[in-house]
């Protein structure tokens, strides 16, 4: 369907001016409309950094993000805000609800920011809340809910403007297993019914395996980009799109493993194997032989 939803090209982020921290470098990938993908990686590997760059919350120090055909480098702050409002939905680890407002008001907020009419938005919000099993809580204060309920309200809020892409950073990081399962079920349902694309950051490999595509980040680089790779471990390079890449050799378990097998840890001594194996997906990344990761210069 024409343009991809998201094109990340050679994305890099270096923090600091004196003491430099390379949080992300050479990350390139494309996300089509309606994809259901996850980003995995160890703590500090750069997952949140990547998601924040894609979500136009942060600006890259290298490379570019194109969203819905807009090269976001050229956009003013206001245009970036508008794009966030219209195209993206955010779900964070911390629900980030506004404690001063009721559940319904929280959910309606992105619509009001977008300039929608209150009546239409209320009706839609009630509908979305119903979809998330939150009927009857509309008038409650956001503070009066349980953790799971808060997160579902945050999801409802993220969905209100019918975003093309929902970005979720550890959305279940603060939830118990029951609530976690419920949230991912919801994501799936929404994905199926509304065709919303999802990009979910998680360090729970079991969760990642339930998504259609896994992007693995290690030391600031995209080291793996696979579709259904672990569902059929026998076929290490099953992928369709041209941007799809082979998994790392060590990421393909050496035969016969179950689909439920967790992703192998990104090499604990990540700096070393990279030297001999260009372990990366996407253009640009392989041009850099040195896997810096979070190199502190």
């Amino acid at each position: 369907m024409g343009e991809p939803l998201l094109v990340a090209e050679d994305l890099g982020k270096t923090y600091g001016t004196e003491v430099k921290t390379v949080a992300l470098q050479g990350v390139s990938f494309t996300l089509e409309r309606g994809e259901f993908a996850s980003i995995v990686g160890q703590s500090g590997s750069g997952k949140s950094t990547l998601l924040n760059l894609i979500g136009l919350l942060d600006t890259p120090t290298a490379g570019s993000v194109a969203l819905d055909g807009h090269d976001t480098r050229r956009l003013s702050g206001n245009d970036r805000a508008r794009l966030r409002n219209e195209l993206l939905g955010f779900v964070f680890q911390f629900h980030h609800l506004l404690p001063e407002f009721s559940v319904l008001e929280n959910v309606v907020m992105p619509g009001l920011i977008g300039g929608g009419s209150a009546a239409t938005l209320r009706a839609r919000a009630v509908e979305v809340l119903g979809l998330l099993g939150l009927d009857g809580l509309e008038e409650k204060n956001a503070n009066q809910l349980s953790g799971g309920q808060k997160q579902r309200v945050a999801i409802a809020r993220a969905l209100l403007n019918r975003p093309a892409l929902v970005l979720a950073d550890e959305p279940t990081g603060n939830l118990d297993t029951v609530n976690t399962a419920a949230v991912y079920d919801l994501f799936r349902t929404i994905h199926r019914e509304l065709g919303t694309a999802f990009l979910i950051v998680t360090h729970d490999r079991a969760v990642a395996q339930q998504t259609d595509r896994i992007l693995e980040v290690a030391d600031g680089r995209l080291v793996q980009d696979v579709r259904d790779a672990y569902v059929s471990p026998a076929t290490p390079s099953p992928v369709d799109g041209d941007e799809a890449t082979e998994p790392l050799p060590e990421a393909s378990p050496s035969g016969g493993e179950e689909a439920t097998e967790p992703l192998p840890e990104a090499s604990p001594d990540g700096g070393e194997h990279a030297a001999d194996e260009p372990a990366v997906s996407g253009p640009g990344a392989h041009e850099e032989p040195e896997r810096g990761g979070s190199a502190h210069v």
Partner: protein
Amino acid sequence: MLSLRIAARFLRKSPVQSGLIAAGIAFGIGVQVFLGSLIISLQESLVDETIGSSPQVTVSSAAEGEPVTYTEVLQRTLEGHPGVTTVVPTRAYSAIYRQGDESAPLQVTGGELQRLDTIYDLSGRVTAGEASLEAGEVVVGRDFAAEFGLEPGARLTLVRPDGTADDETVTAVVDFGAAAANRSLAFVAGSTAAEVLGQEPDEYTAVHLQVDDVFGSVAVADELAAEPALEGLTVSEWQAENEDLLGALQAQSSSSYTIQFFVLLAVALGIASTLAISAVQKTRQIGILKAMGMKDRGAGRIFFWQALVLGAGGAAFGVLLGVVLILVFAQVGTTIALSPQWGFTGISFVVGVAVAVLSSIIPSRRTSRLDPIEVIQGG
């Protein structure tokens, strides 16, 4: 408008903080209104006491000692000026009162009692007797009467400038409100004065005027001086002769302005710091709103609206407070006539709102510059 709604909600959800800011503004503006009204009332009563019972503009002959011919045209011109409230042609001369060895100089003014009352309010200031100014009658000041033991009905010999003397009957003793006037002023019938001065019935020493705005006397005097009917006459007004009083009033106003300035400054600092704290407290919310697509200007306006709402509400309460204070003080029976000064009160209200809005500049800018990533990363 979303900014306003968010601002209103933030205010409502922090009632104590909002109440404190509003109370700060209210007290500041209350003091402002009270102090301002007090000073203005004070000055008005001081001015009234000083020149309320004396001519504020005087028309006299350009040639000293010559009488003013009070023609119909002149009368119409003077009475027709919109700023003039009272026109009283008078005759004036000096005389000496003698009693045995003692003597005292008197400034004698002659005219019709009714007319003189419009400026000097002789009838209203009587402390003994009953004011009347028929030929041969005189009204004297309280201190003069006391000094020489004069009471209504007493005979009084006045030696005129030309040395001749005649007797008048005291009809009333009055209190002019100032010791100097009480000692030296005396009023006689217009005809008596005309005879003393040798003036024709339409000739007078001067025409005394009062104006509705005492501080506008300069303009009135200038305008009258330019009238053709006043050719050959000079017009003087009270301000030129009362620089000391004006200087004192000015000094009083300045010190009052200084106090008001510092009160407002304190209010502004209070609002600014409380709003700044509030802006810090709401950093997370602002960051979330921005992440959801709220633009920088919209986010910045939240604190502008908060300040406007608090400023308007607080200033309204302040005005109420100040006016009530003034009314209470007015009731408690002071000698000066206290009354709320509406013009000044209106200005105070506007100033209060403006100060509040100005105080929101720093938190507004902070808010508008906040990068949502700071909040999102902070967790």
